[in-house]
C-alpha cells in the first residue's frame, strides 16, 4: 500500500477499526512479557548499586513512566496538528483518548521519583530540572482535561484541545531548557538512545525491557480506547450497529 493510500485510509475510522482488531492483544501480550521479564530481572537478578543499594531498582519503573509521560504528550501534540490541519477524525479521537493514560503515567513518574528520592537523596521532593518539568507536564495534561470538560460541543472541544496540545508541545522544550539551568539533584540521564549507558549491561538491560514494555502498554491501551471511541462516535452508522447487535463488542 502506497503512502498516499495509507494517508487516505487513515481518514476513515472504520478502516482503522477493522485493521486494529488484534492490536490490543498483540501490544498487550508484548507489554506483559516485556514488563514481567524486565521487572523480575530488575528486582531479583540485577546486582545492587554501589551507592544506592537496592533503592535504585525503582529506576526500572520511574524511568519508563517518565519517558512515556513525555512521549504521550508529543503524540497528542502531533494528533492536534493533524486534526487542525487535515481535520482527521482519527486524530481527534487520539487526542481525547491519550489523556487518561498520559496523566496517570505522569503522576506515577512523580510518585516513583519521590519514593526513590527519599532513601537515595534523603528528600521526598526537590525542585530541580527533571521534577519541575514533570510537574509542569502534569499541569499541562490537566489543562487539556479541564478544557475538554468545559466545552460542551465535542467537535469544538476537540479542536480547542488540539490548539492547546500543540501550544504545550512547542513549549515543552523551552520549559525543559529553562528549568534546566537550575541546580540539579537529579541524576544525569541514565537511559539515552544514542549514548552508551554508564551502567553494566546486567543493570540497564531490564531497563530497556521495561521501557519497550511500557511503550507496548501505551500501544495496547491507546488502540483499545481508540477502538471504543470509534464505536461511540460512529454510533449512527450501520457497521457499528452490526457490531453491537451482533454482540461482537
Amino acid at each position, binding site marked *: 500500500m502506497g503512502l498516499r493510500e495509507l494517508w487516505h485510509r487513515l481518514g476513515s475510522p472504520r478502516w482503522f477499526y477493522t485493521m486494529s482488531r488484534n492490536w490490543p492483544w498483540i501490544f498487550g501480550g508484548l507489554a506483559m512479557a516485556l514488563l514481567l521479564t524486565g521487572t523480575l530481572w530488575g528486582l531479583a537478578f540485577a546486582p545492587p548499586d554501589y551507592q544506592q543499594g537496592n533503592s535504585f531498582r525503582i529506576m526500572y519503573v520511574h524511568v519508563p513512566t517518565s519517558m512515556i509521560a513525555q512521549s504521550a504528550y508529543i503524540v497528542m501534540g502531533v494528533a492536534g496538528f493533524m486534526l487542525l490541519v487535515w481535520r482527521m477524525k482519527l486524530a481527534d479521537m487520539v487526542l481525547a483518548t491519550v489523556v487518561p493514560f498520559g496523566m496517570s503515567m505522569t503522576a506515577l513518574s512523580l510518585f516513583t521519583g519521590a519514593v526513590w528520592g527519599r532513601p537515595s537523596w534523603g528528600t521526598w521532593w526537590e525542585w530541580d530540572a527533571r521534577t519541575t518539568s514533570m510537574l509542569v507536564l502534569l499541569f499541562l495534561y490537566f489543562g487539556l482535561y479541564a478544557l475538554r470538560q468545559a466545552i460542551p460541543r465535542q467537535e*469544538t472541544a476537540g479542536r480547542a484541545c488540539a490548539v492547546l496540545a500543540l501550544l504545550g508541545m512547542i513549549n515543552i522544550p523551552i520549559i525543559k531548557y529553562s528549568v534546566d539551568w537550575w541546580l540539579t539533584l537529579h541524576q544525569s540521564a541514565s537511559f539515552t538512545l544514542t549514548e552508551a549507558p554508564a551502567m553494566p549491561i546486567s543493570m540497564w538491560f531490564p531497563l530497556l525491557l521495561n521501557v519497550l514494555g511500557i511503550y507496548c502498554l501505551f500501544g495496547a491501551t491507546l488502540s483499545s480506547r481508540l477502538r471504543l471511541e470509534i464505536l461511540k462516535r460512529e454510533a449512527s452508522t450501520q457497521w457499528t450497529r452490526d457490531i453491537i447487535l451482533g454482540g461482537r463488542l
Partner: protein
Amino acid sequence: MTLFVGQLRREFIVMFQSLEEVANPLVFLFLGITLFALATGGGPDVLADYAPAIIWVLVLLANLLSLEGMFRRDYEDGTLEQLVLLARPGFVPVLAKVAAHWLFSGLAMTLLVPFAALLLYLPTSALFTLLMTLLAGTPALSLIGAVGAALTVGLRRGGVLLALLVLPLYVPILIFGAGAVLQQMGGMESHAQIYWLGVISVVSLTVTPFAVQAALKIGLEQ
C-alpha cells in the same frame, strides 16, 4: 497598517472609557505585595531576598486578571466575529488587541514596578535588571495569554480555567525573569536570561497571532 491602527484606536477608546478595569490588575499587584509584606512580617532582609520572585509572580497573576477581558467585550456585543472572520489579514486586529493589552497591563506594570521595588526593599542595582526582564518578558505574557483567552472566550467560569491553561506556559518566562534578577543580585551577569526572554517574546509574536485566530474561530463555532 491602517487596519492595525484602526483596531488599536478602538481598543484605546474602550480602555479609556473604563479606566477602572485597567486599574484593577495594577491595584491587585500592589495588594499582593502588601499581603506578602504582612505575611512575612515585613523585614527588609526577607523581603529583599524574595522581591524579584514576589514581583514576577504577581505580575503573572495580575496579567491573568486583565487577560479575561481581552475578548469578552467583543464576544458579548457580537463584534468578535467581524474581527476574526472578516478582517484581512485576520491576524492584524488580533495583534492590535494584544498590543493594546500589553500597553495597558505589561507595560503599565513595568512602569509601576519601581514603586513595588521600593516597598520590597529591592536593591537599586537589581532594579534595572528587573525592568529589563519585564520589558523583554511581558509581551510574551500578553501574546501567550491571548491564546488562552481566545480558547476560553464565552465559557462559564473561564477565568480559573484560563489561569490553569496559561500558567504552565508562563513557567519559562517566570524562570528566566526572576532568575535573571536573582542572579544579578548574587553578583553574576544575567544577560543570557534577558536575551532568552526576548527570544520567547519574538517567537511568540510570530506564532501566537495565528493560534489566537484559530482559537477564536473554534470558540465562535459554539
